[in-house]
């Protein structure tokens, strides 16, 4: 007995029971593509039941109907609401000039039995920030939408032309959002007493947690600082009394997007203020 939810990947179904392929294909025309091994390879591992239902214009209930006889049980807690795609074009698309949209028809690639993902990603790279890439395809490329949303696509919109043609628009972000790509050096500041006091004053006493790690044996200070930071509320800061600049900790904090201010008063007396950027 395999318990599944709307979030279960198609590939997992097929792995558990190869008969799933035919069962799903029987639901809707677009889902017949699963019978083609190449397309199956492209789609099955990237799409879950909920998404497949949307691509096929059917419902999770329908999936349930055909999969139950194959030895699957459905997890009932997961309400499988079908999100209907917005039919009206969003503003960013309506206001876009035709020249700013790069149309890319990937159907020939798929017909040749190849996976167009690489080409699409390469093509999206060439799109200028603020401009739009439109992928023309014979199904809704749900996995691609997920992937590009994590990457650099700010907005996406699927336009249904017919049940064999879908235009998916990707709006490229204006510019790189600086998250982990900020250079580490922007996060490490050596302050003098004055500038350090100024930065500490940005936080009220209630927002500041003070700890003293001077008596702890290595690597105790690091561990305490890290565990305190785990619990630190957003908008709050951690004030650390240390006896040395904890060099091994700095990179760890930089990776985690903390801003670190250090005021080295004298040997054995180092103050630090750490907060989320």
């Amino acid at each position, binding site marked *: 007995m395999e318990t599944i939810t709307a979030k279960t990947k198609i590939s997992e179904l097929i792995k558990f029971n190869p008969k799933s392929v035919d069962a799903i294909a029987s639901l809707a025309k677009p889902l017949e593509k699963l019978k083609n091994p190449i397309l199956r390879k492209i789609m099955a591992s990237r799409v879950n039941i909920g998404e497949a239902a949307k691509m096929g214009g059917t419902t999770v209930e329908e999936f349930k109907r055909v999969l139950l006889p194959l030895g699957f049980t459905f997890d009932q807690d997961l309400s499988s609401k079908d999100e209907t795609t917005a039919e009206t074009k969003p503003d960013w698309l309506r206001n876009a000039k035709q020249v700013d949209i790069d149309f890319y028809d990937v159907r020939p690639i798929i017909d040749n039995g190849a996976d167009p993902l690489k080409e699409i990603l390469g093509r999206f790279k060439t799109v200028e920030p603020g401009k739009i890439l439109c992928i023309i395809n014979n199904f809704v490329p749900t996995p691609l939408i997920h992937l590009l949303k994590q990457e650099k696509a700010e907005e996406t919109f699927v336009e249904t032309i017919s049940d064999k043609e879908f235009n998916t628009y990707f709006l490229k972000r204006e510019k790189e959002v600086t998250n982990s790509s900020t250079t580490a050096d922007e996060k490490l500041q*050596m302050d003098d007493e004055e500038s350090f006091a100024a930065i500490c004053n940005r936080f009220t006493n209630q927002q500041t947690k003070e700890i003293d790690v001077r008596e702890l044996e290595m690597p105790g200070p690091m561990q305490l600082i890290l565990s305190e930071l785990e619990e630190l509320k957003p908008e709050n800061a951690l004030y650390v009394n240390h006896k040395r*600049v904890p*060099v091994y900790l700095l990179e760890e904090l930089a990776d985690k997007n903390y801003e670190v201010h250090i*005021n080295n008063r004298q*040997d054995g007396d180092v103050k630090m203020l750490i907060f989320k950027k």
Partner: protein
Amino acid sequence: MAKISIGKAPGNSAILPFYATGAIMFFVLCVLMIFSPESFTQHYFTPHLLTMVHVAALGWGTMIIFGAAHQLLPVICEQDLYSERLASFVWYTLTAGMILLTSNFWNLTVGWLMIAGGSLIVISASLYLFNVLKTTHVCDRYSIQKLFITSSAVWLLFTVTVGLLLAINLKFPFFKQSHLEILKLHAHAGFAGWFLQLITGVSTKLVPMFLLGKSNKDFLLKWAFAFQNLGLILFLIDGYFIGVTARVIIYAAIVLIGVIFWLLYLYDTFKNRLRKRIELLMKHAFLSFLALVISILLIPAVYFSNGYRWATLYGTLLFMGWITSIILGKTFKTLPFIIWNDHYKNFSGKVKVPLPKDLYSEKLTIWQFWTFIAAFLVFALGIILQQVIIIRIGAVLWAVVAVLYNINVFKLLLHKRKKIS
């Protein structure tokens, strides 16, 4: 508030010359290997191989370890280093002694110069031991790492003293036992006494710091200490009074148990780590430990087989696998921090500063890692097949590793302080 002892980092003269010299000598070692690949197809007691082994052990391994130990002792003991001047003196005597000794080995010019070289190295090891004892002595907190570092320093002095006696023995024979038998004892006191115990002690302090993890299984380290020393001492006594027999396999097994206890401790630390990213250092450390375990397992083959290939492979695994790999990784976990502290620790006045990892090229260390693997495999293959040409190709790859390492080390050493804003 009670006064806290800080354990200030010693001045650069106590550390940086060791790193610079070590890096250069690593390159010299690789060049020597290119020039003398046939040494790896002959008996291990040949002038050229003797030279290379001592460049590796003294100029490369011991040199870097001295620099790192001077830096780490204050951290471990939370005490300032007893004497920085002594530390500098250790560098002068070691460097001069190593150059005198190895240059006289090249053509096996026995005599006073070689003996002088050996004497300088004994002086160097004595001064180092004295500095270690004085630094750890004031540190009242007992720690197993302190024990390992102290005992390894004692073993080093023992090793180089036996080495000096061997150098004298070449000119004025006085040993009743065969020179080669004593040489085996000398080499293994160096391996299992100096290198193994130092690396055990230092790694069990450093690895938790790098990985932000801790193991509470200190008992493993006590057993590691007991077994590593027991195996070595039994081997030395048996070997000196009776001779090296098949019983070495028992002693090797005892040392191996000690190694396994230590690796179990590190594994426990690794399991409890907070820093999830597996860094290059960890990969290097893993390869290093792998080479060590393989080399110990190879001991029966070395003992029972004819020919030199297994003995040569054994030495290669230890020097180029175990010791070199750990240094290649650890250098970039210690030196950048030393340089950073030196340049930026006392900075103040609202300045943004680079991070330690920004001071060297991370990309080069990745190249270094893969080239290291290639060099080791080609070189080992050449030894197993006893093909001079393959050994030479391996040596060329080693030289590439050494160049990459040197570029990064000198990039760090020559770092100019810069403000970002």
